[in-house]
């Protein structure tokens, strides 16, 4: 087993909506510089778990620790400065702004400039610009720099959102279905970017995904959820072949068809 320290640890996390227990006592550990996948049929509670981990909702019970610190009830915006970045199932962007502006808002935030009422000094502007160029280069969107984000393709919007999540220099990046709704070509672009997040930037990656080829290609550990609980976890070679994983997916599909 890997000896790297645990960066994100959830213990007994519960989150209910009315009577529905979306997350029903989940333990999860993600180690530093690991690529971890979270899989499971629709409605298994994957996104709800993401929401509880990132403070979109506070969990009803359980604790969330990030780099040793208890962040269970820390406001979501504060967790970002602690080193968490996140994307959403449908890209969460500033639609009426250019790609450059979308990224600048996060860069300003990480430079602690957001409250400034004056345009940044020349020196600061150079630093902001350098970081912007770096982020655009990472997702290879230099040519779209001045385009309005609402006009971009779905795949490009996903890349903008990943770059935005990187703009605050996170240690852990959480991607919620990064390839949902994407064609094959876009999926392979995302795949190589996610690999770069780990290999080139040294980040820890936790992602939710339905595309099993994507999971198999990237994940070092896989956690499978079903009905709000963790069903299986371990290396992908084990989890993806486990008959219980297949049953959970098939069961979900049958109940959808029925």
């Amino acid at each position: 087993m890997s000896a790297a320290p645990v960066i994100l640890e959830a213990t007994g996390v519960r989150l209910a909506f009315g009577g529905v227990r979306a997350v029903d006592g989940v333990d999860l550990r993600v180690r530093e510089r690991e690529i971890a996948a979270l899989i499971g049929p629709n409605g298994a509670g994957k996104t709800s778990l993401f929401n509880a981990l990132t403070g979109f909702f506070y969990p009803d019970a359980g604790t969330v620790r990030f780099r040793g610190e208890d962040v269970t009830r820390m406001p979501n915006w504060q967790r970002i400065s602690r080193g968490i970045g996140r994307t959403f199932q449908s890209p969460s962007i500033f639609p009426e702004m250019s790609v450059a502006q979308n990224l600048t808002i996060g860069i300003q935030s990480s430079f602690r400039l957001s409250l400034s009422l004056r345009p940044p000094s020349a020196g600061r502007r150079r630093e902001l610009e350098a970081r912007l160029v770096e982020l655009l280069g990472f997702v290879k969107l230099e040519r779209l720099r001045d385009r309005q984000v609402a006009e971009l393709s779905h795949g490009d919007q996903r890349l903008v959102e990943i770059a935005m999540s990187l703009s605050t220099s996170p240690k852990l990046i959480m991607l919620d279905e990064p390839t949902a709704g994407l064609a094959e070509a876009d999926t392979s672009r995302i795949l190589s970017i996610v690999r770069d997040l780990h290999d080139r930037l040294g980040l820890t990656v936790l992602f939710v995904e339905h595309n099993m080829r994507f999971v198999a290609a990237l994940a070092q550990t896989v956690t499978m959820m079903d009905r709000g609980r963790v069903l299986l976890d371990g290396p992908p070679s084990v989890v993806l072949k486990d008959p219980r994983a297949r049953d959970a997916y098939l069961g979900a599909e049958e109940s959808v068809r029925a």
Partner: protein
Amino acid sequence: MRLRANAVGTSLIAIVLLALPWLLPAAKLNISLGTTVLLFALAASSVNILLGYTGLMAFGNAAFFGVGAYASALFAIHTVPSLLPAVAVGSIAGMLSAMLVGPFLIRRRGIYFSLLTIAFGQVYYFVAYRWNDMTGGEDGLTVQRPPLAAAKGVDDAQFYFFALAIFALFMVVLWYVLRSPFGLTLRAIGQNEVRARYLGIDTNRFVYFALTLSGLFAGTAGALYSMSINFAYPLLMDWHQSGDFVMMVVLGGTGTLWGPLVGATIYALGANVLSSATEAWQIAIGALFVACVLLFPRGLLGLGSRSGGAAPQSLAMEAGAEPVALAAQGYEPVAQRDLG
């Protein structure tokens, strides 16, 4: 291209505003109509800061406007009768009145924010209405327009230019602020607050500062208004007045620098010109308002913008959008989920 179009538009507006004291009499209109347009535009801009840029439907700005009006009138009556200090006192009072209610508003979004702004606005209104000794109650306060310098009075044309100078100053300030990192962040919050929070931005704090700025603008407009009409009265703070300011912004164009001026012009012309022709002038304005919301939710000035039909977040009341936006505050998550 776009920058040049903006520069041309701004120059045209400046020329018209400077020539207005000669244009209005030529059209058999009083110069004070021009002053009213400027001050309504300034008050509508205070709404625009919240509605147009930060995405918050504010229905209580008349309260800040009225506090500014009373504060400058009281200052002119009871202390030094001098125009500039009286307006400054009104500006600051308007800002403080917003800062006072801010803590109660900043955690709310959408319809809850709107309802609370109405409620607090009405609280200010009733205080003005009931506090006879201070505000003159229902009768209001009559105030003689104080001189600008020495003992010379300020006539209506001079006052127009005084109001124009302050209006121009505030528009420059707004333009400058909107270009700053703070302004870009406000616009980001207006477009997608959840994302802003997930970029490490304490959005409640920004909403508070937006309210403060809005109060400053509204207070200044109100201070100038009572100096303009020599009168401050409770109905200035009523929620109908707040609604009128919102209507001006929507008519002219939310999230545009000059939209409030365009909207205030239409509104003031309607109130002054149409009203002498027909008592039903408000129907005409109402119809125009409905047409704006339905056909061009960006307002008249928004017609040419690239993002054409997209309504600001708070106008496009998408089903289900509300709980998400609120829940993102991490505020009362349990109650919130019950709604979802």
